[in-house]
């Protein structure tokens, strides 16, 4: 089966600067793929190359196996940065115009309005819409013509927490109910970790990691010391005991919290040592690595090199 989206050696230069540098990524059907990177990493440029909005200097893009630049967009809906509309036209009129270009039947407009919860306000001019509503209208427009792949560039940019939550929930629902493959770029790591099953990390135009989120995070722990957080009735005594144990390093943590790095000692042995020293341990929790850890490690390594 061909990938939903595959790029091989995708490259784009602006003068002497290489904004996208030989990026080869693969998004499988059904994935919610997070395309991560700090601001200026080249995410939007890569997405514009993928969508044919800007020229690529080298490389190939295939969408569901199709390489033709126009035909490959048949199965794609996209929102690039802040979606743009004719502010003087209603939401519905804007979608009707887009439907004409998408080759989607006129009835599809009402379907996507209902899907995105905008049916009640569809007759209002877009200039009266909030940022969150515009974002949802952008997603509605992208859904015209029943695409199989949704490409979203920073879809929660500028939204308040409520708006971000609504967009995330909408995307998760679309992926589940409509069977969409979603390619979403973001620099909000927590957002991506909540939503995506696979990620690619872009740094300075290069793809520095790609894979399933779980696999990448478990790989982060391999060969490294384990970190735990201890909750004890007497944290100061617990700290004093831990400092006396071989293979334990006390890490900086917030007030009343005790974070330890264990090297050559496992959590059970630590627990026994604390209890034997008379410390009442109420919780001992391994610290889970986040995408942020992975991201900082990868981009930090790049900075160092």
């Amino acid at each position: 089966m061909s990938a939903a989206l595959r790029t091989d050696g995708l490259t784009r230069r602006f003068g002497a600067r290489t904004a996208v540098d030989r990026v080869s990524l693969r998004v499988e059907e059904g994935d919610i793929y997070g395309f991560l990177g700090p601001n200026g990493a080249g995410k939007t440029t890569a997405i514009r190359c993928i969508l044919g909005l800007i020229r690529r200097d080298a490389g190939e893009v295939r969408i569901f196996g199709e390489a033709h630049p126009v035909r490959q967009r048949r199965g794609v809906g996209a929102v690039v940065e802040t979606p743009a509309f004719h502010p003087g036209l209603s939401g519905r009129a804007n979608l009707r115009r887009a439907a004409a270009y998408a080759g989607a039947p006129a009835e599809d407009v009402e379907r996507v309005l209902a899907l995105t919860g905008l049916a009640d306000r569809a007759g209002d001019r877009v200039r009266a819409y909030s940022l969150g509503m515009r974002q949802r209208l952008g997603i509605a427009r992208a859904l015209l013509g029943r695409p199989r792949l949704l490409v979203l560039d920073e879809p929660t940019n500028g939204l308040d927490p409520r708006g971000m939550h609504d967009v995330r929930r909408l995307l998760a629902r679309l992926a589940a109910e409509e069977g969409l493959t979603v390619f979403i770029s973001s620099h909000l790591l927590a957002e991506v970790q909540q939503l995506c099953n696979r990620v690619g990390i872009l740094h300075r135009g290069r793809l520095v990691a790609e894979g399933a989120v779980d696999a990448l995070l478990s790989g982060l722990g391999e060969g490294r010391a384990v970190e735990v957080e201890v909750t004890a009735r007497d944290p100061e005594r617990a700290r004093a005991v831990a400092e006396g144990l071989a293979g334990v390093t006390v890490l900086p943590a917030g007030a009343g919290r005790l974070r330890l790095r264990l090297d050559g000692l496992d959590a059970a042995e630590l627990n026994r040592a604390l209890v034997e020293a008379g410390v009442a341990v109420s919780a001992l929790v391994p610290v889970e690595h986040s995408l942020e850890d992975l991201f900082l490690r990868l981009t930090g390594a790049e900075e160092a090199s």
Partner: protein
Amino acid sequence: MTRMLAAELRVVFGRRSGQAALALALALGVLAAATLHILRQSTVDAQVNGLPVQSMVDLSWRGVASWGLRARNFFALPTLLVFATAASLAGEIGDHTLRELLVRPVPRWKVLAVRLFALAILSAATLLATLVPALAGGAAIFGTEADIGPVLLGYLASWASDLGLIALAAAVAVFVRGVAGVVVLVVLALLADLVARGALTVAAGLGVDGAETVRALLPGSSLACWEGWASGWDPAAFAGLALLLAAGLAVAFARFQRMDVP
């Protein structure tokens, strides 16, 4: 393609430039009829070179239509057409609404062609908006005896001239971000053309070979080809117009096909 064109027409006619162009065209048609009616009724003994003004003006429905056409083609309406073209291309590139259409499975040439068709229809609509009230008013005031065939050909040539202007504006609009920039550049180009034509007229007067031919081929002369209904048709002006149209469209399509759209 038909649905895309219908969608574009809604946008082009919905814009202020489109609405202003239609309203102005309509007003000029009405104004031409009213002005000639007032002139016929006037008892003021106005003379130019010893001749009464009334004898110098074609007081017929043909005259109303021809004055309507002259007024319609004088500066304001062509400028509004340039505005409309700029808004359709540079404006939509600048406000990113064009980007939203280019991510669809439609070849870029079709996206551009649909816009140019819509603008051509806007131009035709403005010509009709002047012609219909001018003819109706002229017929009511002066009757329908005069032969209006030549002036109708003038309207048709005027539409061809508008297409040349739209092509020129489109060629500029694919290089410039911003509506005002396109309008200023097109106006400056036409002013430069005016100066060049003036220089060529002087050169022709001095007996320079080919100066008259080159002058006729310049955009300003080509865009005035519609005046031939009264002064005699000039094939060189139409050849120049065809050249302007072909070059403008070639530049616009070639650039649009390859340009980066932010």
